[in-house]
């Protein structure tokens, strides 16, 4: 907790630092009872927020961690099993191990898609001189966000279809008939088809976040690099990337958090199949909880996902902070 707290305070500038805070504050030297009495009205205003978060977020989070040490199903008494759930995950559950490999593949690709591609696209938009085009392209970047995720997933399921799918039709059209297959029905290719769905893989929100960073770079710095004869690639490598690193890191961390717990796209496109070849930990959690009624085991998978996200986030923050310095 201490680590997290110092991290959050360090990152987000703490509370009230550098900003004006109302004057009626009670000095730190007044008695504890006065300070509690003084604080009560503020907590009354915060109550709806805190109550909601407690009931629907903190308490469930606590329950998840607690139940990960039990064998348990809704409505039945829970039996304490210690760390058995975690041991079973890595020693007896082949599907879970398979899901780790799959989520690894997906995470590597999503991280690339969330950091490198937005940088390239943002640089392209940044290079455009016309303000009007720039404006419309920024709108165009988020336009695909209005298509509900489920619609995109279902359409891609359809594009990959073995008999009427667009991908097979295109391959046949350019004479590569031997490459056609039931993309989501072949256990060896299904995970790759799933991972690379969503062509052309441009994440509009991430692009706009990166573009905002580029636009905040002092124009004089860019001009002087041009005067010194730096090529565009040199400028991007030496100036732009270090200066938008905060944005790239935000995209990176968001991508890690989203991809480790990914499961909706898998559920809609393959339901984890064929023969569980596209299973991911998030979906395996869901199946264990609601299809196999192993809530304790499902909670343990959830705790594993949580710890993985936490570690990867902290590691990537640490690594990239040093690289930047």
């Amino acid at each position: 907790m201490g680590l997290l707290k110092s991290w959050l305070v360090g990152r987000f500038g703490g509370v009230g630092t550098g900003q004006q805070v109302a004057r009626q504050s009670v000095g730190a030297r007044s008695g504890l009872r006065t300070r509690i009495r003084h604080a009560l009205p503020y907590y009354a205003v915060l109550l709806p927020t805190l109550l909601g978060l407690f009931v629907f977020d903190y308490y469930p989070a606590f329950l998840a961690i607690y139940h990960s040490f039990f064998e348990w199903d809704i409505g039945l008494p829970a039996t304490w099993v210690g760390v058995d759930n975690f041991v079973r995950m890595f020693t007896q559950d082949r599907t879970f191990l398979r899901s780790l490999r799959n989520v690894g593949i997906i995470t590597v690709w999503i991280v690339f898609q969330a950091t490198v591609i937005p940088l390239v696209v943002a640089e392209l938009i940044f290079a455009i001189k016309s303000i009007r085009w720039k404006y419309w392209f920024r709108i165009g970047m988020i336009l695909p966000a209005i298509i509900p995720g489920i619609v995109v997933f279902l359409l891609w399921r359809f594009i990959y279809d073995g008999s009427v799918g667009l991908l097979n039709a295109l391959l046949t059209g350019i004479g590569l008939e031997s490459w056609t297959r039931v993309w989501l029905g072949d256990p060896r290719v299904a995970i790759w088809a799933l991972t690379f769905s969503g062509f052309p893989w441009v994440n509009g929100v991430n692009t706009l976040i990166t573009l905002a960073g580029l636009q905040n770079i002092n124009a004089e710095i860019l001009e002087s690099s041009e005067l010194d004869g730096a090529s565009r690639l040199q400028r991007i490598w030496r100036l732009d990337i270090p200066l938008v690193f905060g944005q790239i890191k935000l995209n990176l961390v968001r991508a890690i958090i989203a991809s480790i717990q990914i499961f909706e796209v898998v559920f809609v496109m393959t339901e984890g199949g064929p023969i569980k070849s596209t299973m991911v930990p998030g979906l395996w959690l869901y199946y264990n909880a609601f299809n196999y009624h192993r809530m304790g085991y499902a909670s343990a998978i959830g705790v594993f996902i949580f710890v993985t996200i936490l570690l990867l986030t902290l590691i990537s923050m640490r690594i990239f902070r040093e690289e930047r310095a």
Partner: protein
Amino acid sequence: MRIAQTAGYAPDGGSRWRRLGRHMRRHWPIPVILTLIVLMMVPMLLALFIAGKSRAQFDFDPWGLTFPIYYHQTFPAAWRVVSQSILNSVIVSAVSCIGVLFFGSLSAYVFARFDFLGKNTVFVIILSLLMIPAILTLVPRFVVVHKLGLFQTMWALLLPYIAAGQVMAVFLMRTFFASIPSEYFESARIDGASEFRCFWNIALPLSKHIAGVVAILQVLGTWNDIFWPYLTIGTKKELFTIPVALLIFNDQLGQQIGTQMAGYIIASMPLVLLFAFASRLFVEGLTAGGLKL
């Protein structure tokens, strides 16, 4: 005449080509980005094509444009299936959005403007929720909702959505409220305004943009959520939200592909409308905010 024309054309044409070349070197990113945006919209265009096809047309040519176009049959048929769920989704998104904005901004205001015992600790505890993945709490939250007797009611969606959405709202809006010069509030206080009026009549109107970003994030999140409504609404058809209806609809209407696609398009329409009004706000919120880690 002809000779004159050709003679006049040649040098002019040469410089025109050169000018075009220069133009291309300067402006080549424009066609590249245009192509990208078109490619990003391909799934939607395909849906539009296929929505106009009868079963026979689809079997004959699934991916091209075919005539006649049967929109007048597919759209009404799809509407009958998804209309109720669109209404549900609008209610869920709108109510949870208002709830998040109201409670979130009130809390953000308290955190930004006052100092009291335990403030920093409580704030950090709220922000720490940003690190907890939704999947960890999925199962136990379902248990909590079940125990509270909210299973298969609209509250099972509204209350957790409002609770979870506030974390981001408090985080974004606190920073904004703290940046409002305190003179605004001081002069209002001198004129006898209550603290709630300061919040309602000064802070809130000033925070239009950031509130817009919070609202759009909330609407996008709730509108697109698949699993939570799928779990908590279960089999109660009259409470289906859009994604649940589409998922079930997809399995039921596998054969009527045109109707299915028409359903996808209808499902996207409310967001298209929202973005027609709010896209500028959202883009500006994203690009001006200086978001980074």
